[in-house]
């Protein structure tokens, strides 16, 4: 029965909104839904946002990430100072190298985002639902006139908003500091590229957030859901590439085999690698931040014959990484779909 409710929920909500427009104060004595009051969805978003901001967990996380980013700027700036003297080909997009260059002492900004971003997503989502359940507030909340899907959507939105704020703040901080230290202003295209890169970062962290929220619905214990999230995170960011390396070596055709064989193998490995969200993210960021990247797959010499080695315009870069971006969004949506499916039919008992 609830299943049917879930299907028509969106439509019904729209209808309900229309109805509310029709008769604002008519049933005021019964339903004091005054105009100008925020919808329950935004009320929850606001509260969650505030809760996160004030939590110790968030303070610690932002501390780690901010320190890492400042470290990466330092590394990038020293690398740029050395690099500018030696290599003079890529000075057209010098500013973007703030995010991708490093002198080797510390990882780059993009590496930090792809590594620590998931941690932030997991930390904000792993106890979203099960802690409410444990504190006995879930049944009280859901006995208020709000839809169940509004509740999880609001939780997700609040955390995603926070992630967006943090990532953009850090990104712009890096840009600002870069301006100070290298004294080289960015072109409008570079700014747009950075903004898009940060947006992709938000989508990527949003995927991990959604995954950990799915775990928080599935597992009653916050510790279980946190551990499952962290296990997957470590698996994808550390072990997956190692495993793929082994698979690559094991299935590699001999170097003397036909070009089509080699190509097929390379494509298969790429497809396998792309199952990992962090690989997708690194592909998109490298396209966005390094305009020189012209293809994400293998290229034969025939294909590059006659091509002029020049950076891609913004639109083409975006087009190049579009499938990866869609893949990330799709993974997020799949997680959300599962959370929805689980949560809509779950029985809400107090503290169990």
């Amino acid at each position, binding site marked *: *029965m609830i299943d049917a*409710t879930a299907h028509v929920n969106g439509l019904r909500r729209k209808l*309900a909104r229309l109805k509310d427009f029709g008769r604002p104060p008519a049933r005021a004595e019964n339903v004091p*839904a005054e105009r100008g*009051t925020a919808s329950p969805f935004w*009320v929850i978003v606001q509260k969650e946002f505030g809760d996160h901001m004030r939590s110790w967990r968030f303070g610690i996380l932002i501390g780690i990430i901010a320190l890492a980013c400042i470290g990466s700027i330092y590394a990038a700036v020293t690398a740029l100072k050395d690099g500018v003297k030696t290599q003079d080909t890529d000075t057209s997009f010098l500013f973007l190298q703030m995010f991708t260059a490093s002198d080797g002492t510390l990882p780059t900004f993009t590496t930090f985002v792809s590594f620590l971003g998931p941690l932030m997503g997991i930390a904000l989502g792993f106890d979203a639902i099960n802690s409410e359940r444990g504190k006995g507030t879930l049944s*009280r909340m859901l*006995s208020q*006139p709000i839809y169940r899907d509004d509740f999880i959507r609001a939780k997700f939105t609040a955390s995603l908003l926070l992630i967006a704020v943090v990532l953009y703040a850090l990104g712009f901080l890096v840009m600002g500091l870069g301006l100070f230290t290298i004294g080289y202003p960015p072109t409008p295209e570079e700014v747009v590229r950075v903004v898009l890169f940060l947006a992709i970062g938000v989508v990527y962290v949003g995927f991990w957030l959604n995954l950990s929220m799915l775990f928080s619905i599935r597992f009653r214990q916050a510790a279980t859901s946190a551990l499952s999230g962290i296990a997957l995170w470590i698996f994808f960011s550390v072990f997956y590439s190692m495993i793929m390396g082994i698979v690559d070596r094991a299935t590699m055709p001999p170097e003397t085999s036909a070009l089509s064989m080699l190509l097929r193998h390379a494509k298969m490995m790429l497809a396998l690698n792309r199952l990992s969200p962090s690989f997708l993210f690194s592909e998109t960021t490298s396209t966005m931040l390094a305009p020189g990247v012209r293809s994400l797959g293998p290229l034969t010499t025939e294909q590059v014959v006659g091509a002029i080695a020049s950076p891609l315009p913004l639109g083409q870069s975006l087009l190049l990484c579009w499938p990866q971006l869609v893949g990330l969004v799709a993974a997020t949506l799949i997680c959300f779909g599962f959370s929805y499916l689980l949560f809509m039919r779950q029985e809400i*008992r107090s503290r169990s």
Partner: protein
Amino acid sequence: MVMVHPETQAATAEAALPIIELSRLTKRYDGHAAVNELDLTIAKGEIFGLLGPNGAGKTTTILMMLGLTEPTSGRVRVCGLDPTRQPLQVKRRVGYMPDDVGFYEDRTALDNLLFTARLNRIASEPARRKALELLERVGLSGALDKKVGAFSRGMRQRLGIADVLIKHPEVIVLDEPTLGIDPEGVRELLQLIRDLSRLEGLTVLLSSHHLHQVQQICDRVGLFVRGELIASGDVKSLAEQLDDDRAVTVELEVSGWSEELGERLAGIPGILSFGVPERRNAAPDEASSGEETVRIQLRCERDLTTDAARAVIDSGASLHAVSRKQYGLDDIYHRYFEGGGSA
């Protein structure tokens, strides 16, 4: 099997509009029925007590009324609405306080109340006024700026009542509201619930396994055992349902017992049966008299207390105590729970 008695004083005043209707409601978990073919009607303005041991299906029934879990089969109507199909309308009208209610512990009592008010789309100014008024009413006005984490169990329950009331409900559902509160707190809480129901015409459904508390304030109670409502009605009619043969039990405490007195008692017209005289040693201060006190139970067709007492006195024995045994909920409870719902 289940009898519904609509003839209560509250119901007659309110034209006996049913506000909660359950018919053939069933909920199964992996084949075992938590609630089985339940029929129940609660009239507007009534205080109804769901009484039963742990695991009897009380909470499951309440969850189904609120659409927090879906019934396996059967029909639920709350204020004429189906909670699975129209959850929002139902939740707007029904205030629910879960068993062991939880609050956001790092927020103050007032913040928690205001949050609920905002979820119910009450504008901030009236919400604040109402919240302060309710906190005053439940006796928490001194603690409104305290974080809920520092609250005692009783304070939480009282805050829970305020939380339920802030949305101006028509029906309030309280799951084990008195659990874990000290006796004085229970008394105040029950008084509060009763006042609310009487003054504001609220329908109250409360579940409990503390029969005495339920007995104090409920217009009607329903006895729940293993997912079935085995009896419902006011306390008096429950006693009648229990006592199928309508016999009255008279208990006498007599010293100077003799066989002749026994025969005499048995000879009173209307005496159905005659318990075995239970000999007890006299109380220490009466030990000097050397007489034994006998306690005896008579089952009578009607109230024969006076006749029995007269018989004892006429026979020259001394009468220490007479009591007519009335069935309280305790007895009813025991009988049903021991009988395992076979009644």
